[in-house]
């Protein structure tokens, strides 16, 4: 009896030539005060010969970041500047975030996805309080409260 041959084909790469991605810089820093914002740039390279779709996303605290553009298409061997804006809202402290960029080379229903990450290091410092055009720090505010308490005690 002749054996029956079954063929299963899985095409991982169908595009002609090479495929790849570049993302710079590998790390960015945000140093802001509470309730203020900051903006940084990252540069995304499409190393596919053909126009390719891309996407960029924050992996942990996406509600605190605006990414523009977040997705779109990059010409073959082209590049795209991505703006990342840290929105107000993070409490004081130090944070880390990761941004994932992916380039999808899609042909004949097969997706090839090359990705690269940029890490972000975020420092949020105490908020500045403005009063009549003069900036005052939180220690001043604490001092006013303390003086108020002393006066309250003295006149009880």
């Amino acid at each position, binding site marked *: 009896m002749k054996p029956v*041959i*079954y*063929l*299963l*084909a*899985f*095409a*991982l*790469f*169908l*595009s*002609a030539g*090479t*495929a*790849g*991605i*570049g*993302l*710079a*810089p*590998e*790390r960015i*820093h945000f*140093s*802001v*005060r509470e309730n203020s914002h*900051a*903006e*940084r*740039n990252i*540069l995304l*390279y499409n*190393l596919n010969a053909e126009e390719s779709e891309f996407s960029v996303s924050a992996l942990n605290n996406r509600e605190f970041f605006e990414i523009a553009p977040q997705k779109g298409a990059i010409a073959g061997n082209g590049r795209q500047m991505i703006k990342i804006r840290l929105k107000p809202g993070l409490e004081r402290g*130090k944070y880390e975030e*990761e941004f*994932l960029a*992916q380039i999808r080379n899609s042909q*004949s*229903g*097969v*997706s*090839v*996805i*090359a*990705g*690269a*990450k*940029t*890490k972000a*290091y975020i*420092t949020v*410092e105490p908020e*500045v309080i403005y009063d009549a055009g*003069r*900036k*005052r*720090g*939180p*220690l*001043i505010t604490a001092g006013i409260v303390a003086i108020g308490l002393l006066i309250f005690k003295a006149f009880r």
Partner: protein
Amino acid sequence: MRIAVLGMMLVLLTNTAMAANVIITEVLYDPVNSETGGEAVRIYNPSAVPVDIGNWSLATETSAEDATIPAGTVLSPSSYYLIADTGWSTLKDSPEWPAADLEEAITLSNIDAGVALKNGTIIIDAVGWGSGVNIGAGLFEGNPSNGTAQGQSLKRRFEAGYIDTDDNAADFFSSDPFSAAGPAASTSIAVYAVIEGSAPAIEQIIVADEDSTEPGIQVYPMPKTNRQVMITAVVSDTSAEDIASVSAEFRSAAIQMNRTAVNGTKATYSGTIEVPFYLAPANYSIRVKATDFAALETAENITFQYLSLTGIEFDSPTLSFNALPGSTVQLAGDENFGSQNLTIRNIGNTALDFSVSGTDLAYGSSRISAGSMAYTFGTDYSDPTAGVLSYAPQHEDVNLGPGENALKGIGFKLTVPTTTVPGNYTGSISITAEAS
């Protein structure tokens, strides 16, 4: 150039570690009273000649031009200039401290930060504190200082003159603010010598800043392609025709710069330096040297930050499995870019790890689960960098270093369940590069 000394020849014998140019001598970034109103930066002119510091600026982590010195400001020899936050006169920790020459809103972060004194794009001096990896480019020299306790300031060491070794950790220490550690502001009478014939002056060096959101000058690498970076210098002399040559030096390689424009006593020169794509991300200096026909020379540096780049490239245009239900097929990777086996090339300038994930393979309504496929960055599937494909990215410590030809093979093994319906199955695999 003819040299005729009409006055007297002034010879300055200086220790190379002694500051000769305008320097930052003190930074108070963490005052007790108020972070906004109590911060200050003090600069000093240790030279024997007045220096026009008009339009010079302070760059901080917050802004590339956090404060700008008014045009026309001249800093006399042996004199200080104090730039302080708005409100300094009333909010400074001690009323005994000196009044500010300039009050303007500045933001000096308390943690891992720095400040640079700049003339246009040229960094004159910089002081950083904390961890260098977290401080913006151009905001520190050498190693950042260890920082200060609250209420203390970073002060430059003084031994007969201010010490400037271009290493903040060595040059600065924590001290009571504005205590005596350096010379008092000069009250001496300046004596000027009239000298005809002098070395050419480098008035400006320009390297394009490619990221305006960061202080200093940033240059982006390009994946697998060396960067050509243009450098422009404006050089002046008694007459521009007296300038014999201008050259640049980058990583021990000399680059001749060509004259592109002449305007009276000034001439503009341009040249191109080549930066390898795999060169480590760091601050790099370009030294520009101008020489006149009397062999008098002047040299100045410009520093730029070569940014980090994460980049990968795959070589195989097609990778296919031909398998029978119930069989296992392996496709080995290799380190031969351009072969039929899959190879990954690091085309950036940082060492890379990888995370791998994938989807099920689909043919109509039939599926082969992602878990049917294994991968390895090593020689076999028991390697520490081997794994089984899943929807969630799995991190593999590959540590593929950068280089002109940094290659790594990646192999795949597909085990087809016996119940699989024959057909052409498709899916996707994501390979994500991240810095090691």
